[in-house]
Structures are given as structure tokens and as C-alpha cells.
């Protein structure tokens, strides 16, 4: 289980904690403490001696300034071996967001990010990794998101983060850094994220999505947070957040609208994600067997079964996200069964076509070859798992490190095309469709089989996968050469 540290160092005038302002009949810090109590082992509160009287805890951790906060955080991180959750005490947030953060299976430091607005420090991210972050002393150009003040340090990262916090305190002690205009000038959490980015510790982002995550700094933001809480249906937000944010078009718009409801129902029935994964695999085998019959009725029936298999394939991941039940074996089985299902279906189509005198085995083998090659390209490309732009290392006493050198020549054009097409929804989705993700492939494997038959399936499939390969290869090679 986890240790949570609430950072209550922001003053809302007259020696009063911002975290102790009234919001919806309670205060942020009281609300957070009761939200955290059932979810973590231990909740600590860090505050100033002068602000302690307004803190609703008996024995808070006390420090005098920001460097003291960082030292204390380092001490907490060095002391135990469980994951640590660092949270701004003046946050008003959905309890389900805490569940999402706490159940994150990744071994990297994670930070909740939201749209850029007030109350959060700006960050620039690349591939879901923080590249540059803002704080009371640090600015960021070209920020796309903002830090919401919830950071999880998994057990295996504790010592690294502690080291970064300690050296940040040492660097900033005595350094004269002008405080940029902000209502929370004592924000150790923001400084810690800058320190992590600048020492090369990877901080991965967790999107806030439909959840509430508002920082209360004064009466006005308190009212706004209360109104936001009122507006948001937490269960619905939780269901929506179970949908993978980077899924393809078909997965997001044609299947997820109902698969997420199935996932929620499955969670209520306490079905395990791996059970759904195995059921989807079994249906894939049935679909392949039906396709192997080769006649029209069997093709239509196979298409229907395959679509149900695809739906269940999305349900398992959504169920795991919804219920916070991720396991490495689940992730592995999900991925392997997807591949086995797909390649069995190609074989089923080829067997069925052969029964009716049409030999499409070469096409099936070509589809397997190209799809495996495209997957291997996606696995191997560093942009897939690692950020395209690594955080630049440098001292904390510099307000902003130079933005990364921009690409040259054709790489610049590729980067510009990539950025330009990313901003417009139509082109962004167009690009994702062109990548031929799994739901699109299964759609071809079912709809084209039912309407046209095996040869039509493989013709459409091969054209599409060739386009996807050409697109992936050209863009990535250009960018890699220019880097």
C-alpha cells in the first residue's frame, strides 16, 4: 500500500491555509484526507509552523521554507519501501481519479496533467513524458498541458526521486531566483517535477480526462471547484476514463461507446479482465472456424462472432482500467491473444476460400508478413515507448533551459506536418485510421468477409497495411535523420 503526503504550504491570506477554505460544506484538506484514508496506508501532512493551527491534523510535518519541504520529502521517500503519493492539500478532486493514479501499473513516476489553465504549472510533454516543467522559479515555452498537483512515486523510483529532491534543495538554497507571479510561491511539488525533468528522471503523464481536479487558492476558485464537483457524474467520468485515450477511430467511436458500458457491468459482476480476454480468444477461434467453412452464411456468422470478439477485446482493457485490476500477465495475454486471433482468422479465410477453389494462401501469408513487420516497426521505433525529445538536463538555477534544437531540412517539414495535422481533429483521426490499428483491421476482417469474401478481405487489407507501413516508415525516417 501507499503513503500519501499532502503538501499544505499555500497561504490564502491572514495565516490561513488555502487548503482550509470552505468548499461544498467542507474543506479541501478534510475532503482529501477522508478520500485518501480508505485508499492508502498512511496520510501525512506537510505544512508551516505558522499555518499549522488551521491544519486539521494532530502531528503535521513542519518545515520553514521550500528547501525544507524538499529535504523533508526526500526523508519520507528514503524512509520506506511502498509507493508514495504526493498531493497538493488544496486540491478538490474526484476520488476515482485517485484510484486511477494509485492503480497505475507503470513503474515510472506519474503526474496528473490537465488542460493548460490557472492553478496548474505549465508543462511541455512529448509522447506522454514531461520534457520541461514550470514552477514558481521556472518557466516553460510551448507548454501544452498543466500539472494538477498529484504525483505518484512507485517503490522502485523512491531513491531516485529522493536524490533529486535533496539536490534540488541544495541547489536552490542560497540561489537568488526571482519568483514568477503566482498565488502559490512555495510549491515544492512543482519544483520537484522540474528537478526530475532536469536530472533525466522520466515523469509520465496521467490525463485528468473527465474527472474533477481543481486547486483552491482563494474564494473564487473555491466556488468554481464546488460548482465543478456538482456538475460531474463521477461514475460516468470513471467509465469514460476506462477507454484507452490513444485508441483508433473504430475502437473509440464505434465500439467503445457500448463496450465501456459492458466493462462497467462486468466490474459490477466482479468478472476478472483475464476471463474476458480468454472469452474473446475463444470467440476468435470460433470465427476462424466459421470462416474456414467458406460459404456465405458461415462468412456472415463468422463476421458477427468476430465483431463480438473485438468488442470483448476492448472490454478486457476497459474493465482492467475501470476496476484498477492491471496485471502483467493480463497485459501479456491480451496482446498475445490478439495476434493469435488475428492470424487464425487469416488462416480460416484462406481455408474457406480454398474449399471453394480460390487459393489465397499467398495473400494470407503476405498479410501476416506485412502486419508483423508493421508491428515490429512500431515496437522498435524509439518514439513508441520513449519520448521523441528527451528532457534536457541542466541546473535548477536556470529559469528555462534552451528549448530543444528544432529539426532541419526534410525532418523539419515532417515535424511540421506532424504537428499541424495533430491539431485538427479530422486530420488527427485520419492519421490514426491510416495507421491501420487493430479495430480497423478487425472491421476489415469481418465486414469485408461478410460482404465480399476472403479475396476482397485480403485485397483491402494488403493495400491498407502497405499504406500504413509507407506512412510510418517515411515520417519516422525523416524525423530520425533530422534529429
Amino acid at each position: 500500500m501507499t503513503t500519501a503526503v499532502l503538501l499544505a504550504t499555500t497561504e490564502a491570506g491572514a495565516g490561513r491555509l488555502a487548503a482550509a477554505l470552505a468548499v461544498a460544506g467542507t474543506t479541501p484538506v478534510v475532503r482529501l484526507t477522508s478520500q485518501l484514508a480508505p485508499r492508502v496506508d498512511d496520510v501525512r501532512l506537510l505544512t508551516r509552523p505558522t499555518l499549522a493551527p488551521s491544519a486539521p491534523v494532530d502531528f503535521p510535518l513542519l518545515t520553514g521554507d521550500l528547501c525544507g519541504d524538499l529535504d523533508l520529502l526526500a526523508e519520507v521517500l528514503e524512509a520506506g519501501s511502498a509507493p508514495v503519493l504526493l498531493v497538493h492539500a488544496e486540491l478538490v478532486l474526484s476520488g476515482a481519479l485517485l484510484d486511477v493514479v494509485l492503480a497505475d501499473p507503470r513503474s515510472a513516476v506519474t503526474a496528473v496533467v490537465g488542460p493548460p489553465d490557472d492553478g496548474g504549472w505549465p508543462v511541455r510533454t512529448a509522447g506522454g513524458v514531461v520534457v520541461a516543467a514550470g514552477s514558481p522559479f521556472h518557466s516553460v515555452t510551448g507548454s501544452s498541458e498543466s500539472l494538477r498537483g498529484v504525483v505518484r512515486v512507485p517503490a522502485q523510483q523512491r531513491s531516485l526521486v529522493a536524490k533529486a529532491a535533496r539536490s534540488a534543495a541544495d541547489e536552490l538554497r542560497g540561489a537568488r531566483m526571482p519568483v514568477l507571479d503566482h498565488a502559490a510561491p512555495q510549491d515544492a511539488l512543482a519544483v520537484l517535477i522540474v528537478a526530475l525533468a532536469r536530472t533525466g528522471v522520466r515523469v509520465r503523464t496521467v490525463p485528468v480526462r473527465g474527472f474533477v481536479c481543481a486547486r483552491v487558492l482563494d474564494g473564487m476558485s473555491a466556488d468554481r471547484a464546488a460548482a465543478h464537483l456538482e456538475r460531474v457524474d463521477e461514475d460516468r467520468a470513471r467509465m469514460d476514463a476506462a477507454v484507452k485515450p490513444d485508441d483508433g477511430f473504430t475502437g473509440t467511436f464505434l465500439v467503445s461507446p457500448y463496450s465501456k458500458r459492458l466493462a462497467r457491468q462486468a466490474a459490477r459482476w466482479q468478472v476478472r479482465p483475464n476471463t474476458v480476454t480468454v472469452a474473446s480468444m475463444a470467440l476468435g477461434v470460433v470465427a476462424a472456424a466459421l470462416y474456414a467453412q467458406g460459404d456465405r452464411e458461415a462468412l456472415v456468422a463468422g463476421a458477427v462472432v468476430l465483431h463480438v470478439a473485438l468488442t470483448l477485446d476492448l472490454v478486457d482493457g476497459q474493465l482492467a482500467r475501470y476496476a484498477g485490476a492491471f496485471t502483467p500477465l493480463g497485459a501479456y495475454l491480451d496482446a498475445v491473444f490478439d495476434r493469435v486471433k488475428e492470424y487464425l482468422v487469416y488462416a480460416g479465410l484462406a481455408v474457406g476460400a480454398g474449399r471453394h477453389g480460390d487459393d489465397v494462401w499467398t495473400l494470407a501469408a503476405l498479410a501476416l508478413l506485412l502486419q508483423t513487420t508493421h508491428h515490429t516497426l512500431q515496437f522498435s521505433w524509439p518514439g513508441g515507448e520513449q519520448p521523441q525529445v528527451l528532457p534536457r538536463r541542466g541546473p535548477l538555477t536556470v529559469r528555462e533551459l534552451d528549448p530543444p534544437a528544432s529539426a532541419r531540412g526534410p525532418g523539419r517539414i515532417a515535424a511540421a506536418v506532424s504537428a499541424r495535422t495533430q491539431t485538427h481533429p479530422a486530420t488527427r483521426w485520419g492519421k490514426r485510421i491510416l495507421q491501420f490499428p487493430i479495430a480497423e483491421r478487425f472491421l476489415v476482417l469481418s465486414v469485408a468477409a461478410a460482404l465480399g469474401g476472403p479475396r476482397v478481405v485480403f485485397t483491402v487489407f494488403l493495400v491498407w497495411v502497405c499504406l500504413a507501413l509507407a506512412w510510418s516508415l517515411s515520417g519516422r525516417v525523416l524525423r530520425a535523420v533530422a534529429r
Partner: protein
Amino acid sequence: MSVLRHYRDDGPLVELAAKGRAPAATALPSTVAALLPVVALLVLPAAHALAALLAATAVAAVLNAPASRSPHVGRLDWLVPPLLRASEYGALLRLAVLDGPDAVPACYALLAALAYHHYDVVYRLRDRAEEPPTWLRRAGLGWDGRLLAAGLLSALGVLAPAMYVAAGVLLVAYVSESALAWRRGATA
């Protein structure tokens, strides 16, 4: 060191050629040679295909020696694994097509077994941080070994049955090895 080197699946021929040679920092330039077998099968007349395949595979294996134990840190080295997959699968498929229509479904079965293993390596590195065992890579003969074997078996006129047998044997070996690894992980 990059994870890419585990995706290579080099066989004994490449290993032998690499013995005592310094690994190159970037792997892509030497790995391009892995395309030789499939290119030879595609451009040379079918009558010379077998000799061409055997010669091209031997040359490709020797030329791949510096890449074999390379750290794969070149800026384009992420092209190495897809290149190795496409060239091996492509050569096997072309050989099967030349051999006759019966060999193509057999080749599909073999490619599916190989693909299972190649995905398994990626996903187990991702989900368990587990490197593929050396004995399994050697037992699978590597891309170079498999191409040589396929060429010889095609010369003997038994390519189709041999591919079915190889697919079955490899699939059993690959699947049982990953199942055992997961059981080991569960009890550990």
C-alpha cells in the same frame, strides 16, 4: 544498450561469423545485407533460386556479424528488427511460392509459429523485463539457420511437409517455454 538486440533472432551462422569480431556501434548498415536472400529469390530465375538462396544466406550471415552483438544505438537502428522480419518471412514465402501451391499453406503455418515467438519476445520484455533465453534462440536456428534449412529441404523436394513439421515443433517449443516462464514467475 538497446532492447532492439533481443529482437534480432540471429542463428548459429551469424554467431560463428561474429566470434572474435568487435561489434559495430550501429547495426543497420550490416543488417541491410539480410535482404540478400529474399532479393536473390525475387530477381534470379527460378532455376537458380536454390543455389542463390544458399549463397545469399551465407553471405548475409557473414556480413551481419558486426551487427549481431552491436548495442543498436544508431539513430536508424530501430529499422533493424522490422528489416530482419520482412527479409526472413519474405524469403521463406518466396521459396514456398516457387516450390508450389502445397508449400504456401505450410509456409503460413511456419510464419505464424515464428511470429508467435517474435511477438512473445517483445511482450515478455515489456511485461516481465525478461530476455529471451539463448538456448531457445539457438534451438530455433535463427533467421539465417532457418533460411539455409529451408533451402536444403526445398532441394530435397520435401519443403511442404518439412515446413509443417518445423511449424509444429517450433510452436510447441515456443509456447511451452513461455508458459513455463509465466509459471516460474507466478511461483517465484
